[in-house]
């Protein structure tokens, strides 16, 4: 199963299906760093907003596709705040994984992580995005797959 987490903030986006989450049309708060999702209500964020719709789909998906325009040289803050709150799917406990300290996974997940970007993207920016999603994938027990560049994202194999 796939999930599309669409963090573009520069265009009108038409929702393509149940597994396509258009973040700018959703109510998603910033992670407050409270750690309740680790230490008080394990696996559940205390913020009651639309983010749990994403988590429900995310833990059932073996392919995570993040979509973003490049803003200030990186993914949009709309997408970043959404990624920040994925920490509820890992445990607080730390392990040595791929030679580094990382969190133990909460679920039996090993997702392939893709990033799709549109608009004007410099080589240095796309290299940085690949490096970032490689690291983020590692933290979520996954593996980075590919960066796809689309001049205009109209059909991302939804």
């Amino acid at each position, binding site marked *: 199963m796939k999930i599309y987490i669409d963090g573009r903030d520069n265009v009108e986006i038409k929702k393509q299906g149940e597994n396509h989450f258009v973040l700018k049309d959703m109510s998603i708060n910033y992670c407050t760093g409270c750690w309740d999702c680790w230490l008080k209500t*394990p*696996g559940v964020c205390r913020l009651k907003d639309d983010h749990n719709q994403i988590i429900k789909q995310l833990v059932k998906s073996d392919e995570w596709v993040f979509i973003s325009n490049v803003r*200030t040289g990186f993914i949009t*803050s709309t997408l*970043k*705040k959404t990624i*920040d709150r994925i920490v509820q799917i890992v445990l607080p406990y730390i392990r040595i994984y791929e030679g580094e300290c990382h969190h133990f996974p909460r*679920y039996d997940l090993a997702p392939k992580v893709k990033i799709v970007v549109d608009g004007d993207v410099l080589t240095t920016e796309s290299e940085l995005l690949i490096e970032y999603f490689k*690291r983020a994938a590692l933290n979520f027990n996954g593996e980075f797959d590919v960066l796809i560049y689309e001049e205009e994202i109209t059909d991302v194999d939804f």
Partner: protein
Amino acid sequence: MLIFNGSPRGEESNSYVMSNWFEYNKLYSLKYIKKHPNYLQEIKNHEKIVFIYPLYVDAMPGLVKEFLELIEDNVDLVKDKEFLFIIHCGFPEAVHLRTVEKYHTMLKDRFNLKRLDTILSPGSEGVRLMPDSMNKKRRLRLVSLVDEFRSGKELSKKTLNKLAGAEKLSTFKKVLYKVGNILGLTNMYWNSQLKKNNAYKKRYDRPYE
């Protein structure tokens, strides 16, 4: 010197504790940006601006990213200013902070800054909980680097490297860590908090499965 605390925890954060080790004119929490929309004006009024924040999923917290977008939308305000980023994380290795360090480097040209430096301080999660004596080395190094930034000097590479520590754990430390995992020593803090919150039995819950 103006400091922006980019931790979503605000005054309860390690970033806040570390910020108060430095001499500054003003310290603001980005957490309150909606209540105090004058932050851009404050940037206009200062030449040296420090951002201090914890790593959230391998980069800046979304809150900080949104503020950087706001700065770019008003980029003329920061032309020829001097920025210092201090980034820290709970993981003990510097490798976790390198990607976002590269990102900051790109901001120098993007924002037409006169100067941009980044200080890495891994292994910082416990700062707010530890007595000052246990933070002494970190504090002295950070204060020394921030003093250099404030006085226009180049940051000492030796101090930067000491503060950043090892890129990855040595083989010996990895083995030690694994043994600690088996014995449950590395989980003591987490387990004590889980027990305090009556959540220990639920620690492996998978509520969305």
